[in-house]
């Protein structure tokens, strides 16, 4: 009997830890993908510390939005796509899924661009890496062995902790850093607004919200454990953005002001790698390359696969890698299509990889606004959420995020008009 208790006790710890504290932390950490690294680096390189205040706003928003998604997963036991379908019917679902498909297609492109850019640092041409990696990712998914690979790749994310060391070692002017973090110092320019949209889009990526809610729903966590998953959501947001904060600081110190505007608009992965030099010296390129490769490879599989699950769930089509191709043609079609589109786009000769990554995150930011509106309506519906509907704080923060996004989009459009005073 004692042995039995010992065995049970051993399991219980891991069980509670993984079941409750987990999805949020893992998802947000996996979110530090090619798009995130590039966007944070560009923010620091182009605007110094002047985007740090937005990161603070985003962190609060990410914590709240993540918490909403995981609460919906716990309370309803259903994914976001399921709830959208049951609440908004076919038309609303088709719109949401088209949005998600676009967002995830450009995200997959960004991941393959990340893979290509990372290996170019080591002198491997993209015409070799991209076809090989795309085939590998596809095979891993079809053989059902992605979950194993996921764990390995997730651990590569640890190399980004080097940015924290780098940020501290580069001896920034901490007074300026803190001032910029607390006081909004926007730059009235087209590039600033667009990158701000990208910064929001990459940190609160639409695919992550779907992925997070589904994995929470899948675990069947009882309502009583909501405080745990709330803690998970907040911890995940703070941890992910802590790394983001230091990437911006390190990039600001190492790159900002050293490059011509022309160069800033055409950055290469090697330029971003300089931000790691204060931590590891000449090995910065190697470390940056490994980190970018691992993170991009991870999401290059997760994004297409989770898209296939989400869309088929919404329309009630057969799904799962255990199915035969003939039984689940849409499921296989979606992830295969996304991988193919992502890989082929990167193979276009002369396409600027880094700019492609940045653009994809900006598109994610635009689409996030629409997805957030769906979420806010759902999480406030008493028929769905019962007494677990949003409190005032969650509504204010998530609503404010939509307003901020729409505002940035409006400012961007205004500044894009020829002859606008903000242009330039």
């Amino acid at each position, binding site marked *: 009997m004692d042995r039995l*208790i010992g065995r049970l006790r051993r399991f219980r710890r891991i069980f509670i830890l993984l079941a409750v504290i987990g999805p949020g932390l893992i998802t947000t950490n996996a979110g530090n993908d090619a798009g995130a690294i590039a966007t944070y680096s560009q923010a620091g390189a182009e605007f110094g510390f002047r985007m740090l205040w937005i990161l603070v706003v985003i962190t609060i928003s990410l914590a709240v939005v993540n918490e909403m998604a995981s609460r919906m997963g716990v309370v309803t036991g259903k994914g976001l796509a*399921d709830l959208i379908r049951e609440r908004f019917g076919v038309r609303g679902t088709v719109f949401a899924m088209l949005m998600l498909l676009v967002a995830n297609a450009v995200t997959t492109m960004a991941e393959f661009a990340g893979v290509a850019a990372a290996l170019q640092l080591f002198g491997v041409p993209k015409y070799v890496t991209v076809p090989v990696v795309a085939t590998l990712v596809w095979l891993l998914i079809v053989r*059902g062995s992605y979950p194993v690979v996921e764990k390995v790749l997730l651990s590569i994310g640890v190399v980004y902790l080097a940015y924290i060391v780098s940020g501290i070692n580069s001896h920034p002017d901490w007074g300026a850093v803190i001032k910029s973090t607390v006081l909004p110092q926007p730059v009235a320019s087209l590039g600033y607004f667009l990158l701000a949209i990208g910064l929001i889009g990459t940190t609160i990526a639409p695919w992550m919200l779907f992925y997070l809610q589904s994995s929470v729903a899948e675990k069947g966590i009882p*309502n009583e454990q909501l405080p745990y998953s709330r803690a998970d959501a907040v911890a995940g947001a703070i941890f992910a953005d802590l790394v983001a904060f230091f990437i911006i600081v390190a990039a600001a110190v190492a790159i900002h002001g050293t490059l011509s505007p022309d160069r800033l608009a055409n950055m290469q992965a090697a330029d971003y790698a300089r931000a790691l030099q204060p931590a590891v010296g000449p090995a910065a390129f190697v470390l940056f390359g490994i980190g970018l490769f691992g993170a991009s490879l991870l999401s290059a599989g997760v994004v297409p696969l989770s898209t296939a699950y989400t869309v088929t769930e919404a329309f009630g089509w*057969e799904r799962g890698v*255990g199915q035969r191709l003939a039984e689940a043609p849409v499921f296989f079609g979606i992830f295969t299509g996304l991988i193919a589109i992502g890989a082929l786009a990167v193979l276009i000769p002369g396409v600027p990889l880094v700019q492609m990554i940045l653009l994809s995150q900006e598109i994610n930011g635009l689409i996030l606004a629409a997805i957030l509106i769906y979420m806010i309506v759902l999480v406030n519906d008493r028929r769905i*959420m019962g*007494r677990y509907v949003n409190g005032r704080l969650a509504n204010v923060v998530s609503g404010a995020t939509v307003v901020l996004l729409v505002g940035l989009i409006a400012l961007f459009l205004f500044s894009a008009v020829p002859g606008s005073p903000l242009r330039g």
Partner: protein
Amino acid sequence: MLFLTEILGAEVIDVRQRRAGTVRDVTVRVQEPYPVVTGLVTSRRGELVIPWSRVRSFAAATREVALRTSREEVEHYQADPRDVWLARDVLDKQVVDTDGRRVVRVNDLQLAESGGSMLLVGADIGLRGILRRLGIEGVGKSLARLFGRDLPMVLVSWDVVDPIAQGTAEGGAPPGDDAVRLRISGSRIAKLHPADIADIVEELGAKERRAVFDTLTEEVAADTLEEMELEDQVSVIEHMDAERASDILEEMPPDEVADILTELPEDRAQQILGLMEKEEAEDVQELLAYEEDTAGGLMTTEYVAVPDSLTAQETIETLRRMEPEAEQIYYVFVVDPEEHLQGVLSLRDLIVAPPEKPIRDIMIRNVVTVRVEDGQKEVAAVLSKYNLLAVPVVDQEYRLQGVVTVDDALDAVLPESVKRKLPRVF
């Protein structure tokens, strides 16, 4: 043929050609085999329902519902709380097609006139339903014809549809729950083969899964659980009422129960063990004492052992009384009064032997065995080398402790990815 989404949004016109509202929803009263339409909901908040008896006709072309009465008369009717609202409660929800044994989504609902009343006869679960809702069903059909294909209507007759209880926000399914109201003769899922039920529930979310299990009898629930992966078994048992969990687990082989309990939080496992019948609980506890990856951890204590003093005839009669499960009867083990393993018999040996012959004389004496502490790989190797369906497990004193069947041994040594590729034999 009339579809729910064609009538939703239609204008209601009274006898004096005046507008009397727009159709927001259609209510039905549940009956077997097909629910009957009781009324049309015409206001946004749903307090106004026009009884179907007041409807004279529906013109699909102009999307107009003609009433038999004037609008002043109908406005007094109130919604019946027992009725199910099709757009709100059924459309876009997941249901189980018990004929196709799969989980599908309701894209549209088919209504048909029969004997003066309108009945809910089927669910559209195909692409046509989705295209119709988008208003491009015709476009889809022409496009399909362009490729020389037909765009078939995928309909499921309502009498093979089983709605899944929607997990409510408060957990559990209170009386008056939509899905419960939708069925009157119990769950149709419960009548399927447990292997099919397992496939279906594995496609459902955690709360819906629990709702389905609530409708199953203990025997069916146990058989269904046996067909599921350990991870899912644990999730189902963990959130079930402890009393019911213990009742279901009693119906399962002790080795599987031990596997599940090991994965549960300690107090929960203790609680369930405490509620189980003493005999079953002791079997499980014995198994829990062995390491997972040894013969002791793999074995089941449900096997057939008979005393060596019996004759062939007596042995057959003993078996008849025991009514063993199929997987236990591969071999009949022969033991002495101290449970020492003496030999083994196959059913064939028993049946072809003269009735009066002592089994001591027909049994095979040098039995292949494994020890409780042997590793799972050794066990699998023994089974494969001697081509056995099951191998007895003995302790140091050669006392029979249990049996490892070939499927349990395979489960333990095969990696997950290979297992999924294998055809399901067991």
